[in-house]
């Protein structure tokens, strides 16, 4: 790994003391701006008897109050903005499966920060001027498309802003325009890879070498599958719209976790029950404080993502703190008969077996007050046995492997290929009928 693959070495390879000082200065300013401009924060500070001037270093972060998704909803749409609307140049909103969307605003300075962290991210994956990047994330209120877009332009790559969907056109542009980088959700990447294989497109016509995937949790097994199908090195980009969008953290070539751009987004791991900060290396809920954002800074925002932090220096030369690939969001987590189940665990079982595809869906029901889990698994369109004995053998093997992974039994149903809803954006992995 050479240093020419680091966009901003001064920050990304900064000494710990230097980063500490930068974070402290920014946090002090942020707390003051929040107190002066947002009644919600002023009330919170007053409640615990805290004056903004009391905060002098980032070590005091642990004494500050948390913010969570409900606070955003309660202050919908613009209640948490610290600047007048005249300074806001962009608004994004996350879909929000229940209730109101989550709204975020950006000033010019915020958009600059965003382009900067995405430029760092893409450079980390090895993208540079001269690359052609096909951005197959949704353009619109969702932060994926436009987030990647401005970072890619900043480093001087050629951008194909194709957005999601229309797989046929995706493949045409990819081959005709000789895209070298693809950015989309991992589930869509797998879908594109299968379409390449099924449409008889020659490997020579696909020039991809790098994949930048995020916006949903994915396993290492799916990574291997995508790398094989698309012949790319696949990198995880992490972000959430509340913090900025994609580019909060990014995986480097060492693939030993995502580097968090902690000069802008300070991460902490807390115990979701006691809310105490946990030491590095322990699994807990990820919390971010966006110390440099102007329009809508967030203080100790609870992401509900579960992960760990590591601070040892990375072989790539970066000193930025690393977070493990997210195991899943606490709200993706299903509790079935009292057992915590993440869809990613099911994916990992299926990807470990050669006879199955990564296309699955969990259906949870309540029958006679008992939770039941059914998992639909698509058979491989080209490669399946027409012997019921063998198909049933596979089904039972999935059942056994799931049982030993999850600790609870699940009914496996084999289904025809392409029958599970393929989101061109995010995969619909779970149907929980218990809520109805």
């Amino acid at each position, binding site marked *: 790994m050479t240093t020419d693959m680091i966009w901003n070495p001064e920050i990304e390879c900064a000494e710990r003391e230097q980063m500490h000082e930068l974070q402290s200065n920014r946090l002090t300013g942020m707390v003051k701006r929040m107190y002066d401009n947002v009644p919600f924060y002023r009330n919170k500070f007053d409640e615990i008897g805290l004056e903004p001037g009391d905060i002098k270093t980032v070590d005091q972060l642990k004494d500050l109050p948390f913010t969570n998704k409900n606070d955003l909803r309660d202050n919908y749409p613009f209640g948490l903005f610290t600047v007048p609307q005249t300074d806001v140049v962009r608004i994004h909103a996350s879909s929000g499966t229940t209730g109101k969307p989550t709204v975020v605003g950006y000033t010019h300075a915020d958009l600059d920060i965003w382009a900067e962290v995405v430029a760092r991210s893409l450079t980390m994956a090895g993208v540079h001027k001269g690359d052609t990047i096909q951005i197959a994330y949704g353009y619109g209120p969702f932060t994926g498309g436009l987030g990647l877009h401005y970072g890619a332009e900043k480093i001087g790559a050629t951008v194909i802003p194709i957005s999601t969907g229309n797989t046929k056109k995706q493949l045409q542009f990819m081959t005709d325009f000789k895209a070298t980088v693809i950015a989309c959700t991992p589930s869509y990447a797998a879908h594109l890879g299968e379409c390449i294989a099924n449409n008889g497109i020659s490997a020579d016509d696909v020039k991809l070498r790098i994949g930048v995937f995020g916006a949903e949790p994915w396993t290492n097994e799916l990574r291997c599958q995508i790398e094989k199908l698309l012949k790319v090195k696949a990198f995880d980009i992490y972000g959430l719209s509340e913090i900025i969008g994609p580019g909060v953290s990014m995986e480097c070539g060492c693939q030993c976790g995502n580097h968090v751009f902690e000069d802008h987004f300070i991460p902490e791991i807390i115990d979701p029950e006691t809310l105490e900060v946990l030491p590095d290396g322990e699994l807990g809920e990820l919390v971010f404080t966006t110390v440099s954002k102007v329009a809508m800074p967030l203080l100790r925002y609870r992401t509900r993502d579960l992960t760990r932090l590591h601070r040892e220096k990375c072989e790539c030369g970066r000193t930025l703190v690393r977070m493990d690939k997210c195991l899943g969001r606490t709200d993706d987590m299903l509790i079935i008969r009292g057992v915590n189940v993440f869809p990613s665990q099911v994916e990992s079982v299926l990807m470990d077996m050669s006879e199955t595809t990564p296309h699955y869906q969990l259906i949870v029901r309540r029958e006679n007050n008992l939770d039941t889990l059914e998992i639909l698994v698509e*058979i*491989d*369109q*080209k490669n*399946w*046995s*027409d*012997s*019921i*004995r063998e*198909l*049933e053998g596979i089904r039972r093997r999935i059942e056994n492997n799931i049982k030993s992974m999850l600790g609870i039994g699940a009914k496996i*149903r*084999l*289904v*025809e*290929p*392409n*029958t599970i809803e393929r989101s061109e954006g995010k995969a619909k992995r779970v149907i929980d009928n218990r809520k109805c």
Partner: protein
Amino acid sequence: MHIQQLSVFLEDRSGRLTELTRILADNDVNITALSVAETADYGIVRMVVGRPQLAKEALEKAGFSIGLTDVVCVNMPDKPGSLYRILEILTDEGINIDYMYAFSNNDVALAVIRAADIRRVTEVLEENRLKLLSQSDIYQL
């Protein structure tokens, strides 16, 4: 001599078999033999058809999962003991049958047989002077 059988994976969903046969009809594919094996959640349709390659392509295009499997189609007189004679031969040779389906019409009976070692089945039955159908016997012109 063996022939190719078309296998189709079908979810237990109403109208799926109708859809399958519609596509074959639209493509003018004749079905010589057909059987459905079913489990609680899915079924497998196995067919001997006039234009296997064309049928495979048309069905795949419509999203069906198709497999081509080598099977033996043996021709025998439509009278008591015919099938017994064939199965006795196979049993004596230690051949296990995975699945089979049979039908008769106009003094002729046909049995479609699938076993792991389909070559051996062919050899054994031909050695015993049994008449096996070839692809061209079924192939639609």
